[in-house]
């Protein structure tokens, strides 16, 4: 029977299927950070349990950590406590942890792939909804709640009903200046924030095939924002080239065996998906959000749409969003004054993102009056930035490079956007108050962020 990539991996990991209930799914890799794990470890202690398979969990504090002075103790006591709790739990239960300052430390969804810990055909979970990022490698990767973190630690399995499958195909070739982030934002604006709820998505088509691994990670990262359980791309030569030689990837004979297996994973020709959606690259230009969820977005050349609400509740929600953001229907988005720019996060915090930013700002200067945070997704990415001399380009242009962490994506550490202020952010969520109480967020790709950093306004990067 022809199977999809998702089916093949899911079925290969089903330990038991409960009658009328969920599947007991074996988890190959569990990533663990400091925010969603404390109560899970407490639960283990309460039950008198050890971690069943310690070697399959990897820990890295990322949400709470400051992005400056990482060699000093964390100033905020609550943050410090949460990070120290993870350190203590990892030590007590015998888990690998890449703590602050460790050469492998960084945002959990950045360090996994770059260290070869995320592999095709794997089932991967983490107490974080952007776990879908790892799907870029042809893994079934998804976010879970703290109770499920406890389940994985206790039994290396979770209970999960099998989601439906959806294939999203993007045909054609990207126009100049359009990035994977724009493709993702375009898809979400067409699908809405609940359009893929209940589905596990596979991304396909020329545009996806042509993407680098980092671009595929950006694309898969945002799957949750349209409600999908996860998003994945079939492993191919691009995937194998990226993984070959990575520290924790299989080596020698094991590598050859693994690649032979991975080649059997892509969706069979006549496999059937529960839903199929197609988009054309010709319709995609650089995108920005204007509202308070990732689906409320437009092309940068467009104007804020008229209220599309079909009933009182929808209309009220839209009106509220526009009021919060300070936009009017019909208003052009370009020309909006920007207070902050954030380049980083598990969405766009990798080397290629900073390389693109450097290309755009080289020989130019940061606009006065804009606060810009350049936050590499990991210590390794920071090293790559320095080796490539990008740090000199940033310094000459007046930009400050920070240390790795989740930073301004969500106001859990020092990097917060002040109330009422507007931030163009390469992260993944623009909910009310996401980057700080009363803060306003515009999601965008690296070129739009660079253009805003250089001009102080939302600017079409293609005009620079």
């Amino acid at each position, binding site marked *: 029977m022809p199977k999809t990539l998702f089916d093949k991996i899911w079925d290969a990991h089903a330990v*038991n299927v409960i009658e009328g209930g969920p599947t007991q799914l074996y988890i190959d890799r569990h990533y663990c950070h400091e925010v969603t794990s404390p109560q899970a470890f407490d639960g283990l202690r309460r039950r008198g349990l050890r971690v069943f398979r310690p070697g399959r969990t990897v820990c890295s504090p990322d949400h709470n950590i400051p992005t400056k002075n990482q060699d000093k103790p964390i100033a905020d006591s609550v943050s410090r406590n949460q990070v120290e709790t993870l350190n203590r739990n990892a030590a007590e239960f015998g888990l690998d942890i890449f703590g602050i300052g460790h050469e492998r430390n960084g945002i959990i969804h950045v360090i996994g792939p770059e260290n070869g810990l995320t592999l095709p055909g794997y089932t991967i979970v983490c107490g974080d909804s952007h776990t879908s990022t790892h799907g870029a490698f042809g893994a079934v990767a998804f976010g*879970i709640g703290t109770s499920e973190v406890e389940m994985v630690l206790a039994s290396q399995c979770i209970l999960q009903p099998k989601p439906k499958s959806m294939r999203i195909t993007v045909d054609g070739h990207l126009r100049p200046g359009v990035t994977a982030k724009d493709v993702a934002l375009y898809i979400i604006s067409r699908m809405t*924030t609940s359009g893929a709820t209940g589905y596990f998505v596979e991304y396909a088509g020329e545009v996806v095939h042509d993407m680098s691994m980092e671009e595929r990670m950006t694309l898969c990262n945002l799957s949750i924002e349209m409600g999908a359980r996860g998003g994945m791309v079939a492993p191919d030569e691009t995937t194998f080239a990226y993984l070959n030689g990575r520290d924790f990837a299989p080596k020698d004979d094991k590598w050859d065996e693994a690649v032979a297996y991975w080649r059997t994973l892509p969706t069979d020709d006549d496999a059937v998906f529960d839903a199929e959606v197609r988009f054309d690259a010709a319709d995609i230009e650089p995108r920005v959000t204007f509202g308070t969820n990732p689906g409320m977005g437009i092309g940068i050349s467009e104007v804020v749409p008229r209220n599309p609400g079909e009933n009182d509740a*929808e209309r009220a929600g839209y009106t509220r969003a526009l009021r919060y953001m300070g936009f009017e229907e019909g208003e052009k988005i370009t020309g909006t004054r920007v207070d902050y720019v954030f380049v980083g996060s598990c969405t766009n915090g990798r080397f290629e993102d900073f390389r693109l930013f450097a290309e755009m700002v080289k020989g130019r200067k940061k606009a006065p009056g804009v606060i810009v945070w350049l936050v590499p997704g990991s210590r390794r990415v920071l090293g790559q930035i320095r080796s490539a001399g990008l740090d000199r380009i940033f310094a000459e242009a007046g930009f400050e490079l920070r240390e790795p962490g989740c930073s301004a994506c969500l106001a859990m550490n020092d990097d917060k956007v002040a109330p009422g202020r507007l931030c163009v952010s390469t992260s993944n969520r623009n909910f009310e108050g996401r980057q700080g109480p009363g803060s306003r967020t515009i999601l965008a790709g690296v070129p739009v962020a660079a253009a805003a950093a250089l001009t102080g306004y939302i600017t079409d990067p293609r005009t620079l």
Partner: protein
Amino acid sequence: MPLPVENVDTDQIIPARFLKATSREGFGDNLFRDWRFDKEGNKIDSFVLNDPRYSGSILIAGKNFGSGSSREHAAWAIHDYGFRVVVSSFFADIHKNNELNNFVLPVVVSDEFLKELFDTVFASPGSQICVNLPDQTITNLSTGHMEHFDINPYKKHCLLNGLDDISYLLSRKDDTEDYERKAKHY
């Protein structure tokens, strides 16, 4: 408790700054924190949770409840505040699962039934709603209208018996070890 807002994301249910706790207790205090209290900590009277006319352990919410971040803390906050049922016409997946794992029952009803619930409760704040888990029905006692709701049979069994996924998984360790012996590893 009627909350006629759609697309309530988990950042609103429990803002990120409250995720720093290392235990499960006390999250109810921060449920819908930035809608209940202003920056100085004063109650925002217009918000329904602060309106003394409305109470009860059933939260009625607009569609797409619980979107965004996977934070299970949102379900803990809802439970800790005192809600045992959330009624909506649509729930985001991860949050729905989190509720089920934390003894809060998510009940999915039709848009029409939901609208009628809001109309009933706003017209008469003391209105009663009956949720019967064994029968899988929800009844608007003022209008007499009833709807059947779906729930995964395994989750229903767990909720009704106060059971826990972890005890179940621990009981299947032999199967897991069997699986590990047979599965491909690399």
